[in-house]
């Protein structure tokens, strides 16, 4: 058992697709809120396989995409300083700010480095005591434990030159915002499996009850996604035909438990506090983000560098906001593939490897039928 190929088996995929088609009596509108799931759905053509039974709307599951413009501009300002080594995941480098991106800051001599873990950044801080090392802490609840540990680690080592620019976002408030919107078309949710391995599933029960909408915790491999959809369609059919009330289900039991990772949750509660957060393209969602607790203020890059309020300028042609809310499919956007391409992105959804627009562009389909 290697937990990879077994969950990509085409024969089992076929069975799952047929099971879904057998039970669906209409087209259901389903949303996933996880960039990794969006990517996997499009790359493997799961939306093609389920065409007619399921209409996927891709939610704001790409943390790179929803990082507020003001935060990007703040990062650019800090990265441009001579005494700063700015560390970030690779995805963030091409996200357009009001005027430029981190790549161009690097091209002009800024010390911007791609790292794979915040621990790489703390190591760089220890090795460069005369520089200020800043790590761009972006992501959902999945990457937050790593960032929390880097702060605890820095505190233990007494690293005064390390700080975190925090812009974490939380999934359940985003789902609440989407479901509360008058334009909402989503009938069922696939909940992000890896977020749930950290946080457990307890936050989703209240959403199911409040909005009477089924939610299925789902993984990333093709079979996991199909199984998540299968359970969701089953629940939706039950609600629709037999008037059963909505439920929460776990279709990723090998990785997700109800309680989640309690050690990680303790660290998160210690290092972060909940805050209101701007979601790029969507607007302000209350209590939807994490920022550093005042207990760890000395590691907060926003305080350390005192980058005050910045005037931000979003491209007027970019419809990323509507894409992120699921109101528009990427290929329905007038700029898609014309004025907005990975080479010249208007918005973050075209840049990030998990962005819906990038996924649609990279794996785009032929205009003619899927059967080549």
């Amino acid at each position, binding site marked *: *058992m*290697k*937990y*990879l190929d*077994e*969950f990509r*088996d085409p*024969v*089992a995929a*076929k*069975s*799952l697709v*047929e*099971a879904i088609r*057998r*039970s669906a009596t209409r087209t259901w509108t389903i949303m996933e809120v*996880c*960039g*990794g*799931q969006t990517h996997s759905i499009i790359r493997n053509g799961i939306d093609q396989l389920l065409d007619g039974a399921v209409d996927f709307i891709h939610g704001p*599951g*790409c*943390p*790179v995409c929803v990082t507020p413009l003001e935060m990007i501009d703040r990062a650019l300002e800090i990265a441009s300083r001579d005494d700063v080594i700015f560390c970030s*995941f690779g*995805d963030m480098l091409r996200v357009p700010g009001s005027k430029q991106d981190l790549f161009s800051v690097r091209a002009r001599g800024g010390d911007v480095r791609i790292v*794979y*873990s*915040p*621990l*790489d950044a703390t190591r760089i801080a220890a090795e460069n005591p005369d520089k200020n090392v800043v790590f761009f802490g*972006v*992501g*959902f609840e*999945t*990457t937050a*434990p*790593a*960032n929390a*540990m880097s702060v605890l*680690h820095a505190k233990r080592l007494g690293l005064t030159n390390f700080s975190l620019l925090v812009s974490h976002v939380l999934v359940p408030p985003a789902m609440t915002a989407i479901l509360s919107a008058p334009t909402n078309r989503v009938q069922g949710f696939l909940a*992000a499996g*890896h977020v749930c*391995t*950290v946080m457990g599933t307890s936050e989703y029960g209240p959403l199911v009850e409040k909005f009477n909408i089924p939610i299925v915790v789902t993984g*990333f491999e093709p*079979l996991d996604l199909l*199984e998540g959809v299968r359970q969701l369609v089953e629940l939706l059919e039950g609600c629709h035909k037999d008037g059963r009330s909505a439920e929460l289900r776990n279709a990723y*039991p*090998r*990785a*997700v438990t109800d309680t989640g*990772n309690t*050690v*990680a949750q303790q*660290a998160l509660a210690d290092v972060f506090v909940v805050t209101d957060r701007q979601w790029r393209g969507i607007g302000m969602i209350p209590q939807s983000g994490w920022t550093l607790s005042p207990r760890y203020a000395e590691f907060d890059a926003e305080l350390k560098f005192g980058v005050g309020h910045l005037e931000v300028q979003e491209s007027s042609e970019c419809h990323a906001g509507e894409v992120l809310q699921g109101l528009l499919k990427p290929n329905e956007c007038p700029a898609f593939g014309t004025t907005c391409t990975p080479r010249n992105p208007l918005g973050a959804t075209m840049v990030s490897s*998990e962005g819906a627009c990038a996924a649609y562009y990279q794996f785009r389909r032929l205009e003619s039928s899927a059967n080549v």
Partner: protein
Amino acid sequence: MCLGIPGKVIDIWEESGTRMATADFGGTTKTVCLAYLPDMEIGEYTIVHAGFALTRLDEVSANETLQMFAELGFLDEELAGTEGQSSRETA
């Protein structure tokens, strides 16, 4: 960012009070931090994010899931053989 792939823990040691491990992702190995999985053991599988092991993969549960997929396949064959029936069967 959600990029977490399953790896097998093949070695565990301590480094300045923190448990570290080598995870094998099918021929590629990487050092990961076990701070969030204090009772992880050699031979077990985990999912790693940004250098940290966050999940222990449950083999029994995984096998049950795969078994369920296989049973769906048998169900397919049965239904294909009984074409014309429209009733839903419970697995």
